[in-house]
């Protein structure tokens, strides 16, 4: 079963990285996920200041604005999609992710399955 781990960074330091972990931690985690054979996909998102939001109103008019609308302090910094047997396994992998430390959090979302 596929799960998406949404990596929400908490307080971001001046280099744009999440607090409480460094690049080495991320590289190590990424290697673990790949070595375990559960990796489906994953990306790190570019800095938040590069984000652009698009909305289409009822009149069909497109509105483009700077940044996400999120009022929360946490921002989506990247994601993994992993394939593991159940939620407990997904939660274990989420707990090992450096992004779960400090003020960050990982939201685990099962990917909807359609079977025929």
């Amino acid at each position, binding site marked *: 079963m596929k799960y998406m781990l949404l990596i929400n960074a908490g307080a971001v330091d001046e280099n744009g990285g999440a607090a409480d972990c460094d690049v080495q931690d991320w590289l190590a985690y990424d290697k673990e996920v790949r070595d375990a054979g559960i990796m489906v996909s994953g990306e790190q998102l570019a800095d938040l200041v590069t984000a652009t939001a698009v909305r289409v109103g009822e009149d069909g008019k497109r509105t483009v604005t700077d940044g996400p609308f999120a009022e929360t302090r946490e921002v989506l910094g990247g994601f993994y999609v992993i394939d593991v*047997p159940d*939620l*407990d396994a997904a939660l274990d992998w989420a707990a090992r992710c450096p992004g779960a430390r400090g003020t960050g959090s990982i939201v*685990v979302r*099962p990917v909807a399955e359609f*079977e025929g």
Partner: protein
Amino acid sequence: MGERAAGSPIPEKLPVASVEAVFREEHGRLLAALVRRFGDLDLAEEVTSEAIEAALEHWPVDGVPPRPGAWLMTTARRKAVDRLRRDRTFAARLAVLRVEAERSEPVPAAEVEGGLPDERLQLFFTCAHPALPAEDRGALMLRCLAGLGTPEVARAFLVPAATMAKRIVRAKKKIQQARIPFRVPDAGELPDRLPGVLQAVYSIFTEGYAASSGPDLQRLDLAEEAIRLARILRRLLPEEREVAGLLGLMLLIHARREARTGPDGELVLLDEQDRGRWDRTMIEEGLRLVPVALTGGQPGPYGVQAAIAALHDEAADLATTDWPQVVALYDVLLALEPSPVVALNRAAAVAMRDGPEAGLALLDELAEEPRLRGYSPYSTARADLLSRLDRHAEAAAAYREALELAGTEPERAHLRRRLAALDQPGS
């Protein structure tokens, strides 16, 4: 019901109510075994009720089969396979294959002896999974393990049936779609996961012990259901001392149920209870569990609370209660679980040991605790101590504050009586 083996025969021509009691015992076990086989809680629930309905129809006519539990299991399994055969999805076809493969395997030993393998432990951990909303965990346990219908569960938690139905559907959907596994955590995870299970059972009990709202102070059926669940857990996890602690705690509290309310359903506090009405058998059973909970390593919070309850139950009256020991146990509890409510109870025990002045000083230190603001027992405790110190005007103000905050009518009636007693000359 207790230890009734699934295979022992039910005497024939039992009144329907007793047959239903038997089914209640089998329900959780049956459901757990079916969930394990089919991995689908909804399907398992449907065929469990269908099998019980079939039994209610056939047994009065054909007689009770020699192994009722196995009969129910076979019937339920057959119904599940029928349903899955009609279902054309890939998952259903897989489930059928799995069951058919199982049939060619040797029957597990437990089943040969007439019992069913007990898979309820897995269901306990699934119902209390931390990924589920805390308020739904107790409800799911009552629904799945105690076999209560959704309207009964709704009544237990004092919410409309439609609301409870929605919550249960939502929780079951999460179990299925997020694939919360049906499994017992391994030894390494158990210390993290067991407290959640115990908490869910205890929350059912406390809702029964002191309903948070509504006309009645106690809901004995609910408290008994919680005790029954804890007994099952104790059988399934005999080595876990906190399970013994929780069961002991609930028994030692529940033993006082008859004395806790007066003739008109009003609250009777510990100091005024007729201790002759306490359930001695239940106290004895609870007392036997306390040393189990406290022996071998650091005790857990339920074991310590059970020990405190035991000291109350053993005392002949309030004055001869071993208050120094009670205070010492509250110190241990406070170290384990620092909480303002525990601190409040400790202050009340200190007042009994060292006098009202000492207790009041501790209570006043807690005045700024956000969790005690708007908490009626805090105001009540202050009022009681002020009244013992003959500070009547302040006591009256505190009682009035508690009166506004109290959730149930019996509590309010009790507070009104204390308030009235203050006005009596010479009180």
